[in-house]
């Protein structure tokens, strides 16, 4: 075997291995399966949604069927048919109703709208305010309050302004209630009525309609939201399209059609986000993350480690450069490790907490009942090192605040660099007791038992937060919601869940 052969052999081996690697790492989601997506779309939002669905079909070959109607009408459809993938309503209140009826899984915000008074171009009747609608001979068209979002919101805001009664009577007398908002706009355009109350976005579609904004509607920023139906049989495909609508790509189209879009996520067919997670949380979070990835068709790069290391990594990565290292979401072991990176995160919420307990061998041979028992002469104790791990820092704070720090520390024979190392010191009988997380004792419950500590300091609180620089904040929020719904996963791992509905 001479040099030439060796190099050839080596190159072949490298190529083969790389090929194997690519086969191994291929994400397993395919683009189009047979069934098209069924999307219930409020009529007023048709223009941007139609455009986006056509673009999506062209780009990715996914077939989309759009069904239009008034938001309320569509909702009744869904309730009856129990069939379909997505529901886009004109305002969030319908989505809320749908959620309450157990029809919705995920919600994605898309854009904002505001009710305005629409009149024919030139405003021949000189209408300036809602009051003017009650002038003689003015004919108005409104959306049906039971069938349309616009109608419902008109009713709510006019009632607040004390005007609903008269306006309703006027519409009933010589005006009309229409089942969808484009029909209201059409009537105004045609001149069949003198004015109508529609969405600003709808009005933008029509060249020959003028808008008058009335202060009664100033605070009415309705959110167009999309709900993923529980009845969907293709959740991954549905969520992909939902993400498309919610993304920057979608934002542009909504803008073009006169809507005021939310600030969406970046668009990727298969997005990847980075999730920094304190090692102690892993058992609770792992299955949630796995299921989330599967359902959404995304990849979440979870980086588990001690929070000291994680925050150190964050500081190192120049997050203003958006290097693919800075996390999009972060679940810390304790608030302590969120505080010192707080300026990079937002929307934090406390998901769970876990007690710090005294872990002793099963049967509690030394009959330890409280922290003071740890100060007895001859006790061997282990704790976490305060600078290296969260448990260490919390233990330190707790003992200091109970004024037994020095007494306990004189019995400490070992300080570990991570919480994971504490329980083994008990199971291997190197110490009589250790101060560890309750969740760690649960994993070895046949060998250790926990003695509870009565102190407000004996707790680690795990906050979940989203990074300010993340391009996938909506995705991050959905993950947060998923975690918030997973009480079972956390309690069975030994955490106290803090987000009871």
């Amino acid at each position, binding site marked *: 075997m001479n040099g030439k052969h060796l190099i050839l052999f080596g190159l072949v081996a490298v190529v083969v291995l790389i090929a194997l690697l690519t086969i*191994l790492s291929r994400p397993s989601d395919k683009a189009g399966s047979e069934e098209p997506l069924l999307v219930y779309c409020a009529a007023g939002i048709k223009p941007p949604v139609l455009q986006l669905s056509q673009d999506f079909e062209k780009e990715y070959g996914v077939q989309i069927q759009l069904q239009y109607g008034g938001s309320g009408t569509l909702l009744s459809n869904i309730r009856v048919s129990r069939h379909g993938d997505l529901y886009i309503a004109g305002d969030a209140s319908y989505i809320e109703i749908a959620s309450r009826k157990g029809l919705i899984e995920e919600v994605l915000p898309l854009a904002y709208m505001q009710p305005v008074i629409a009149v024919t171009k030139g405003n021949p009747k000189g209408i300036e305010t809602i009051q003017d609608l009650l002038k003689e001979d003015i004919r108005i068209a409104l959306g049906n309050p039971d069938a349309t979002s616009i109608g419902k919101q008109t009713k709510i805001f006019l009632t607040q302004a004390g005007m609903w009664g008269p306006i309703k009577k006027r519409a009933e007398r010589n005006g009309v209630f229409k089942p969808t908002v484009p029909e209201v706009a059409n009537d105004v355009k045609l001149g069949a009525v003198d004015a109508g109350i529609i969405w600003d976005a709808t009005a933008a579609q029509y060249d020959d309609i003028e808008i008058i904004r009335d202060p009664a509607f100033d605070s009415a920023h309705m959110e167009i939201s999309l709900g993923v139906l529980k009845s969907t049989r293709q959740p991954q495909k549905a969520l992909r399209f939902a993400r498309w609508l919610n993304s920057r790509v979608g934002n542009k189209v909504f803008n073009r059609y006169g809507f005021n879009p939310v600030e969406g996520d970046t668009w990727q067919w298969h997005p990847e986000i980075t999730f920094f997670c304190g090692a102690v949380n892993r058992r609770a979070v792992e299955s949630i993350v796995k299921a989330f990835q599967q359902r959404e068709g995304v990849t979440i790069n979870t980086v588990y480690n001690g929070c000291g290391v994680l925050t150190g990594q964050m500081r190192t990565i120049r997050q203003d450069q958006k290097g693919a*290292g800075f996390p999009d979401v972060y679940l810390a072991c304790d608030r302590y490790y969120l505080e010192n990176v707080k300026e990079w995160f937002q929307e934090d919420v406390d998901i769970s907490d876990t007690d710090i307990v005294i872990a002793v061998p099963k049967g509690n041979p030394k009959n330890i009942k409280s922290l003071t028992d740890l100060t007895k002469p001859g006790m061997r104790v282990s704790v976490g090192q305060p600078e290296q791990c969260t448990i260490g820092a919390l233990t330190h704070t707790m003992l200091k605040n109970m004024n037994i720090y020095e007494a306990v520390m004189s019995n400490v024979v070992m300080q570990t660099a991570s919480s*994971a190392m504490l329980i083994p010191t008990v199971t291997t009988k190197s110490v009589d007791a250790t101060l560890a997380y309750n969740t760690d004792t649960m994993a070895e419950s046949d060998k250790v038992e926990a003695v509870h500590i009565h102190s407000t300091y004996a707790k680690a609180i795990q906050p979940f937060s989203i990074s300010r620089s993340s391009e996938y904040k909506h995705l991050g929020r959905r993950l947060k919601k998923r975690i918030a719904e997973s009480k079972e996963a956390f309690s069975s791992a030994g955490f106290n869940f803090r987000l009871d509905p």
Partner: protein
Amino acid sequence: MMTSQISPSDQSHRRSDKLFYVGMGVIGGSYVLLIVLFLAADIAYMLQGSSRHQLVFDNPLVQALSKPEIRFSILLSLISCSLSAILSLFVAVPIGYLLARTQFFGRRFVDALLDIPIILPPLVVGLSLLILFQFWPLTARLPGIGVTLNELVVYQVPAVILAQFAVAAAFAVRTMKATFEQINPRCEQVALTLGCNRWQAFSHVSLPEARRGMLTAITLAWARALGEFGPLLIFAGATRNKTEVLSTTVFLELSIGDIEAAVAVSLIMVTAAVTVLLVTRLWGAKDVMV
């Protein structure tokens, strides 16, 4: 006529010889014994708490092997370690040769530089890689593909290879330098007089002589790559079914207190490593036999 009696001085010689070997054996054997003992302890710890039936069919080792993530981790480890080891050898051979044979400017400095990945704690290697990828041009969009090298590598599979390679290659270089230093340079010189150019002399004479050394280098690099986890954690993440290899699995299992699973995966690692190393040595020895 020869007597078959053993003289007293003969006897004491024989005895002292025996004593010598026994002494060496005891001292050396104590280390071998230590290794055997902690492997045995691991197995015992892992199996405790299982009933007799569980022992064979449902012990933590079998449980671990049945999880698809663990199987992925095993495959990824095997492939990535092999790739890192081959790449390490590719760079180690030229570097080792140059260091052993030539006197270039800054040679001693380069020699010392090559020791750095060995001296540095592996965590620092991983951190340094992460920091490196935050700089331009690694954050520049590649023409035609539209992604940055940063996005292609960090927390992806190439990061696993890179991190393993960064450390394993240093060991391979050390080995190849020593190998080439031991090969008589005269042989290459003779080859030159016989009509070879430098490449031919290297390829036909030096490389075949270096076969044993290369085998050692590649197995050393492979073993090192398998055991590496510090830099992987920081630079490649440990995402299930994506960048998780056996060494990070052990760490992760440990970090949630699942010691039985950590030990089970460690034993899988040991088995995989011993198998691969044995096979390589046997196959190599056949070839290299002189």
